[in-house]
């Protein structure tokens, strides 16, 4: 029991000296180089991470920008498309309206033409009838026919007329 619980002043003294020497040698000759390499590497890693972060940020910005551009382009395209569609619709409507108008005009014109032709025909007929009557009268007067033959002739002439 006595040995192990003994506090040996000599051992304390030598242990202090040993530890001091160890601390001195290590901190003088071994630690600085290790510390330097550790620090430079840590700095390098930190720089690399910072750089990567900066690059990432830049890339993010670029991405956002291009996304925005893309969105704008899309919007523009859809605007153009819709305006073109509107225009086309308008054109079609206009064309339709015009065609309708034209048709009405044509029909109107045709009606008028028909009317005019009819009037022409009627007036022609009237002239013809008058002529016929005149020629018939002339014939009657030329041949001096009897009352019966007059009548017969007149009847024949009238029958020649188209029924109207």
């Amino acid at each position: 029991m006595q040995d192990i619980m003994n506090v040996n002043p000599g051992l304390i003294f030598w242990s202090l000296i040993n530890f001091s020497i160890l601390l001195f040698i290590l901190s003088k000759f071994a630690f600085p180089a290790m510390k330097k390499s550790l620090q430079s590497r840590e700095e390098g890693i930190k720089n690399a991470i910072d750089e990567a972060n900066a690059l990432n940020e830049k890339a993010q910005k670029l991405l956002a920008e291009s996304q925005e551009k893309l969105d704008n382009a899309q919007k523009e395209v859809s605007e153009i498309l819709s305006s073109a569609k509107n225009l086309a619709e308008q054109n079609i409507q206009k064309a339709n309206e015009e065609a309708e108008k034209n048709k009405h005009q044509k029909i109107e014109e045709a009606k008028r033409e028909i009317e005019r032709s009819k009037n022409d025909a009627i007036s022609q007929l009237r002239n013809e009838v008058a002529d016929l009557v005149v020629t018939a009268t002339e014939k009657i007067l030329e041949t001096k026919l009897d009352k019966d033959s007059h009548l017969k002739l007149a009847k024949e002439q009238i029958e020649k007329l188209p029924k109207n």
Partner: protein
Amino acid sequence: MSATENTEHLEEEMNSEVESTHGTEETAHKEESPVTQILNDLGDHEEFSFGPLHADILPVILYDEGQFHFYGSRSSMEASGDYIMEHHHIVRATDHKSPDMNLSITNMVAFQWMAMILLVILFFTVSKKAKKSGDKAPSGIHNFFESIIVFVRDDIVQPNIAGNASVRLLPYFLALFMFILVLNLIGLLPGGHTATGTIGVTAALAITAFLVINYTAIRESGIGAWFHHLLGGAPWWLAPLMIPIEIASMFIKPFSLTIRLFANMVAGHTVLFSLMGLLFVFQSFFVAPAIVGFATFINLLELLVAFLQAYIFTMLTAIFVGLAIGEHSHDHEHAH
């Protein structure tokens, strides 16, 4: 693992112990019980011993009656006739009393030298590799030691010690951690002795901790704050109570460090030695498997304890340093 070797080691030790008691002293004291035998084996010796190897090569340095006495070894000391060995202790040949001070290089000092040489070689190798590798990733032993350095820095020193002091004190904590760890591990080698299992060594380490704690506190916060700290933050009229308590705590901290490391290292080895001793008590082959298995388990546990105690000693020292500095900066904040 080394359980069987430990057995051999113990056997050898017992034999050599018997031989040495016969060889050096006429008054052979055979009254020693197995317990004292074990505890004496764990303690310090004047001769170098590693396993079965016992060598009387360590110089004896004595300070007695106003002058120093140097001897190349224990036997040359005895040859000079001034001092003799008695019950493993150096005593005067004339009146059989201990000399005033025994500053001999003992076995544990030699084991510290082994640890120092090992550490210096390792760290110089690593430092050379560090110089060469530069910014590149470390490899092999460099990588291993760097991870230890980073562990001590990031998990022990920096969380506890604020500011610039943590940078300045890192070499101390690193050396402390590695020194304790290597001493613990050397003690686990078959036949090795655990220097951290003697109060002298742990007391010396705790003394450095005491010095570092108070030196750092004074340097970082000033001597006024250091005295103010003796109040422990209590109002001034509690001073008669607080100042003795704080002064006591100043000394209790390193004392607890001393005892904690010492007791932890001794306890495991005592258990190991006791288990091995059971073999000699029973003198039977049938108990051997159980004892060897259990001893192997304890040995592995000791491996854990070796790392754990090195960590705890360093961690607590860092905490004490941080407390000694930290309370000042806390007061400072209040003052502003």
